[in-house]
């Protein structure tokens, strides 16, 4: 187990190094001078020179990368081309909004997918099973932002039950936060739930066909005991991974939903940075999300190895 964790840590370190290289190279791909492009009509020679010097664009590429890497390790991701503020604090300010949305969406998805996936596997071929399969096919095919628009149309426009967009921090007013988070979280959560339902169903079905389940039934255990002790405990091990990976991908993958619902998270920040051609902020947001994604995957792998010791042996 110890060796497995060290190996995964080293692998993640190498990948993270690659991630910093890709993020660094993004700025180099900008056609022309990125500072001039970012300043646009606000160009003045003094600001231009100051930003170029601060970004270190006048130095050789290798030196620039090593400097970027060294600064990133100390939490310095440069300054915004627009506001001149440190990128790290700009990105971290937006993180709570994204985390609260992603966590609510995943919680909703688990609440829907868990009973639906387990019941549809246990009653394979039933009406419920067919309904669950239609639901999961619908979820993986529907664009989440379209579902969001339809949600706004119905619940904000026609029924007037929920606000169409906006954000209130949970620390400021939990009730108003909840009313604002429902539509975006359900929109994202339904898509996640459809993926989870499909996965839970397959996982439970696989375990149901195992010899040890047949043995448990043959020795006369009650169905409830077989399901709780033998089927679910084994079937849900891989589900833990999928839930965590879904959560991790939502941290960076809810750009469209955050734009649609004016939710001021990291996704919305990325979009605003793209619109404003504020490349350091774009780089910072992408790097942070990728690092979080890697960290979550690492934690999941370690957790998975702990739940299923065969993994660390492979």
């Amino acid at each position, binding site marked *: 187990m110890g060796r497995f964790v060290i190996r995964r840590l080293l*692998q993640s370190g*190498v*990948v*993270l190094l*690659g*991630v910093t*290289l*890709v993020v660094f190279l*993004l*700025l180099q*791909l*900008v*056609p022309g001078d990125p500072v001039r492009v970012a300043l646009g009509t606000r160009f003045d020679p003094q600001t231009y020179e100051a930003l170029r010097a601060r970004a270190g664009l006048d130095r050789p590429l290798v030196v620039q990368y090593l400097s970027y890497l060294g600064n990133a390790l100390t939490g310095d991701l440069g300054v915004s081309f627009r506001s001149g503020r440190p990128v790290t604090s700009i990105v971290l300010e937006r993180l709570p909004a994204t985390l609260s949305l992603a966590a609510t969406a995943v919680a909703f998805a688990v609440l829907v997918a868990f009973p639906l996936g387990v019941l549809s*596997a*246990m009653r*394979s*071929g039933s009406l419920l099973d067919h309904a669950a399969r239609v639901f999961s*096919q*619908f979820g*993986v*095919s*529907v*664009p989440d*932002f*379209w579902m969001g*628009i*339809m949600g*706004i*149309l119905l619940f*904000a*426009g026609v029924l007037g039950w929920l606000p*169409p967009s906006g954000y209130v921090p949970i620390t400021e007013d939990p009730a108003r936060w909840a009313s604002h988070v429902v539509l975006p979280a359900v929109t994202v959560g339904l898509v996640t739930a459809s993926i989870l339902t499909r996965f839970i169903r*397959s996982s439970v*079905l*696989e375990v*149901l*066909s195992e010899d040890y389940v047949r043995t448990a039934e043959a020795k006369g255990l009650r169905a409830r005991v077989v399901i709780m002790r033998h089927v679910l405990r084994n079937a849900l091990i891989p589900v833990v991974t999928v839930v965590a990976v879904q959560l*991790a*991908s939502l*941290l*960076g*993958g809810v*750009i*469209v939903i955050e*734009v*649609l619902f004016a939710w001021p998270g990291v*996704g919305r920040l*990325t*979009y605003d*940075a*793209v*619109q404003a*051609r504020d*490349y350091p902020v*774009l780089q910072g947001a*992408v790097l942070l*999300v*990728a690092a979080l*994604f*890697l960290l979550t995957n690492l934690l999941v792998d370690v957790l998975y190895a702990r739940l299923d010791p065969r993994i660390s042996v492979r």
Partner: protein
Amino acid sequence: MSGSEEKTSRRALSALRHDPLAVTGSLVLLLLVVVGVGGAWLAPSGVNEVDVDRMLQPPSWSHPFGTDELGRDVLSRVLVATRVSLQVGVVSVGIALVAGVTLGLLAGYYRGWLDNLLMRCMDVLFAFPVLLLAVAIVAVLGPGLLTAMIAIGVVYTPIFARVTRSGVLSVREQVFVRAAVSIGASDLRIMRRHVLPNVAAPLIVQTSLSLAFAILSEAALSFLGLGVQPPAPAWGRMLYDGRGFVTEAWWLGVFPGTAIFLTVLAFNLVGDALRDVLDPRQLTIGEARRNAG
């Protein structure tokens, strides 16, 4: 066409013929291709024909899908935008397929340091959420149809590389590959004639499912204003432009969204049917289902 290629094609076609959902998906795809090719001729009005006297008109006989905020016919725009979605899907998945298969073949066949290097590069690309990386690439290269296709192609390359590599790793140990090596066949010939046809099945499945995801990604990029640029119509962009009016003009949200949904659903239905037949892991689940039932 080699024996294994023929066998794979036969199994794929049989999968599509015998599954009613796959037949439905295939028919929808056929219809989409027809609309994609002939959308401009089928459209009742010009896609950019502005009519300020007919702004935000609800569906009627003259405008079955209504009109948008500039008085343009929504049906015409939905029909013409079909080509954009299919084009982005096919080209971007084509890029991912060619790049991913090449990298996966090289990594799996030669193994060693090349395998390590290429797969670590793929791991790096996998570390980014798909849409985020696509947005970042389009943001630096500049928005537009071509950059959207390149960005989507890049983000889907690692999955093709991994699928190919895992297939190649098992195929290269087979007796017929060793036999080809022993008679002095070149690496290129072995990869092209013996290895690639035997890893085709999972690649067909992956291509079909990736087309669905690519079309969703293109719609998302267009929604963010990073795909096809106005005034050219794209389903995602139509949803973005219409979102401010959707409470008083529901048709601006319903019709372009339904078009995306049906297209993605059709690709998914076909992809699922192909996977049921061509992907052994899915067969195991199928067996489990039968056992449980």
